[in-house]
């Protein structure tokens, strides 16, 4: 039998038993739409949770924390410090593409500013860390802006130098001297430079990044909570509104703690971009600034010790092996990474449960289809015998029945996918009517290509399985016996 005539016979038979097939197909549609809906939901949530809240394609290594372990009792203190040597070792681990050390401020800092955004200045303790600019180079809109601006710049004339600097005799840009006065410190120097009290020179703002989360958290909670109320209005902020925003940072000063010697210095910070690799709540500076400040306030050791090292992983499947190697080397994972692992596990579990439920529904549908086919071939007993008499082989009969089942599976699968996606759109529509909350995505669903394949392929597979025994029975049926009434 040629594929063409097989397809024609299948089409004719399905068309003839529309009602039967429709009834059995409904089970498939229900099961497949459940599958598509919930797996799409899990995948969508996975993207939000793992792709935006936690980042699973990177592993963040921190020094070992001893909690009541033997080491703690023996007074061994903390684990190995994370320094440049360790970073090199971690980079050598298989599956690790690159390492990006992070360093936190080892001294308190307080921030002040925001008048232009909030109507009046906001005061806050400032949490800050530093990362290497190359870690974020490919995700920033203006990667050149997030860089160490204290490096020497060779020059031939003043034009080659940044704001507030002139070309010195040695062919290097030099910061201009300025007369410091509290009232005129912002206007005393050209362009974006300002007059610093400690150096009495024109300094450039320190570029900083904030995390996307911070803006999300602010818009999703603070701005929503206070946005409408009378006294304390908090406007919703967009990225473009806050880009270029500047604030004062007083290093080695605190609103809650007394400053400890060595004096404090005041610098301006300028927001130059957003990155998920920036500290969740706080600001992130180019690593070099943090290193210099730590050196200044806490000494050489603080300047050489990282708080964590981010390992960039070649692909996600390598993560478990890398996690193990890191722990074997005597380090821990940052909470974020641990949480991501846990969140991934939970999502995987929920996803499996939904997959199982859908498979049970489709499985029941397949049993139903099996029964329908047994009934159909009993009805078509004489007809199958006739086809045999006219030249159909056992294989032809089997192909015919399985083909009908496959067609139901294909149509049921497509209808199921359409229904699942339809329900997803509906759910998104309903969710859009809900108030804002942090990390609220535009859609809660993601439908990767494999899901289409799995849904339609699965529907066909189950229908074929359901029709397998009926098809066998039909093929085994004696052609002569089928013709006698």
């Amino acid at each position, binding site marked *: 039998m040629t594929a063409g005539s097989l397809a024609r016979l299948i089409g004719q038979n399905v068309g003839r038993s529309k009602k039967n097939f429709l009834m059995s197909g409904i089970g498939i549609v229900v099961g497949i739409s459940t599958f598509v809906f919930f797996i799409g939901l899990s995948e969508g949530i996975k993207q939000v949770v793992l792709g935006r809240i936690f980042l699973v394609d990177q592993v963040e290594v921190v020094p070992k924390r001893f909690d009541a372990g033997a080491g703690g009792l023996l007074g061994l203190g903390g684990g190995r410090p994370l320094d440049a040597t360790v970073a090199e070792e971690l980079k050598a681990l298989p599956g690790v593409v690159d390492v990006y050390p992070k360093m936190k401020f080892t001294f308190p800092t307080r921030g002040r500013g925001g008048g232009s955004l909030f109507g009046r200045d906001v005061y806050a303790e400032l949490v800050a860390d530093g990362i290497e600019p190359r870690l974020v180079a490919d995700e920033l809109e203006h990667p050149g802006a997030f860089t160490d601006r204290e490096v020497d710049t060779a020059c031939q004339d003043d034009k080659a130098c940044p704001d507030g600097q002139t070309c010195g005799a040695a062919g290097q840009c030099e910061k201009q001297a300025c007369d410091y006065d509290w009232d005129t410190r912002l206007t005393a120097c050209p362009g974006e430079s300002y007059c610093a009290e400690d150096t009495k020179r024109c300094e450039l703002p320190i570029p900083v990044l904030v995390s996307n989360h911070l803006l999300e958290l602010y818009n999703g909670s603070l701005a929503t909570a206070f946005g409408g109320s009378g006294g304390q209005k908090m406007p919703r902020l967009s990225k473009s509104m806050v880009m270029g925003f500047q604030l004062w940072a007083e290093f080695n000063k605190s609103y809650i703690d007394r400053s400890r010697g060595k004096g404090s210095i005041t610098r301006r910070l300028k927001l130059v971009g957003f990155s998920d690799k920036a500290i969740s709540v706080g600001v992130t500076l180019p690593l070099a600034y943090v290193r210099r400040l730590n050196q200044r306030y806490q000494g050489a050791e603080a300047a050489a010790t990282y708080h964590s090292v981010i390992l960039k992983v070649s692909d996600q499947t390598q993560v478990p092996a890398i996690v193990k190697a890191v722990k074997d080397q005597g380090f821990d994972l940052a909470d974020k990474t641990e949480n991501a692992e846990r969140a991934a596990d939970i999502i995987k579990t929920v996803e499996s449960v939904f997959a199982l439920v859908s498979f049970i529904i489709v499985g029941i549908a397949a049993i139903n289809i099996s029964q329908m086919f047994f009934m159909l071939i009993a009805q078509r007993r004489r007809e199958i015998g*006739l086809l045999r*008499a006219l030249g*159909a*082989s056992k294989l032809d009969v089997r192909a015919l029945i399985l083909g009908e089942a496959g067609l139901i599976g294909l149509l049921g699968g497509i209808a199921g996918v359409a229904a699942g996606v339809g329900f997803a759109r509906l759910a998104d529509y309903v969710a859009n009517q809900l108030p804002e909350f942090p990390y609220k995505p535009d859609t809660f669903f993601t439908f990767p290509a494999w899901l289409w394949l799995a849904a339609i392929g699965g529907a066909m597979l189950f229908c074929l399985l359901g029709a397998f025994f009926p098809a066998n029975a039909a093929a085994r049926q004696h052609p002569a016996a089928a013709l006698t009434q």
Partner: protein
Amino acid sequence: MIRLTQVEKRYPGAAAGELALRKVSLQIDEGELVAIVGTSGSGKTTLLNLIGGLDRDYRGTVEVAGHNLAALNDRKMADFRNRHVGFVFQHFSLLDHLTALENVALPAAFLRGPAPISEDPVARARATLEEMGLGSKLGENPNNLSGGQKQRVAIARALLFRPKLLLCDEPTGSLDSTTGAQIIEQFQALNREGYTVVIITHENRVSEAARRIIRIEDGRIVDDGRGGAQ
């Protein structure tokens, strides 16, 4: 054309001595028109099924159109039925969800390898139906046809690949006598064209049309002789 040697058939479940066919030996030559007669349950259909390759469970040898049927596997047997045998049954056996034309062309769906006829099967189906005076019924469903028309559609289907052998099991059994007579004339005409025709019947007027009548009783050939006609 057909040679049966010492053929025995026992249906599964039947008692040991209870045979549907007992040591049947028989030869039918190309171009013959043979009637097989006998009472109900005597074994006529059983015999026809063996000749037509619908039943492979027997003892002895059955050779048809140069094939020893016991040696054919399922696929080759299906091929044999498809190309070499045209079946006509008492109950017409048309598919109600297909048109007359589609019914006649149906064997083409199961053709493997080169076609046994030079023309396009659908064109051949149409031409045959027109020859039989059913040119206006090509798109009709079998439900809308009379008994005689249905049986002529079934005959046209049997003729699709111009098989050498037509096997007919009580082809007039469901028809009134006038229509039955027309159908018998049709078989006689086909026989004159060169088809070998084997007709099972228990009607005398049918057997009278045949040149040779084989009488079966209780699974045995009890008479094999010339009939009345010609």
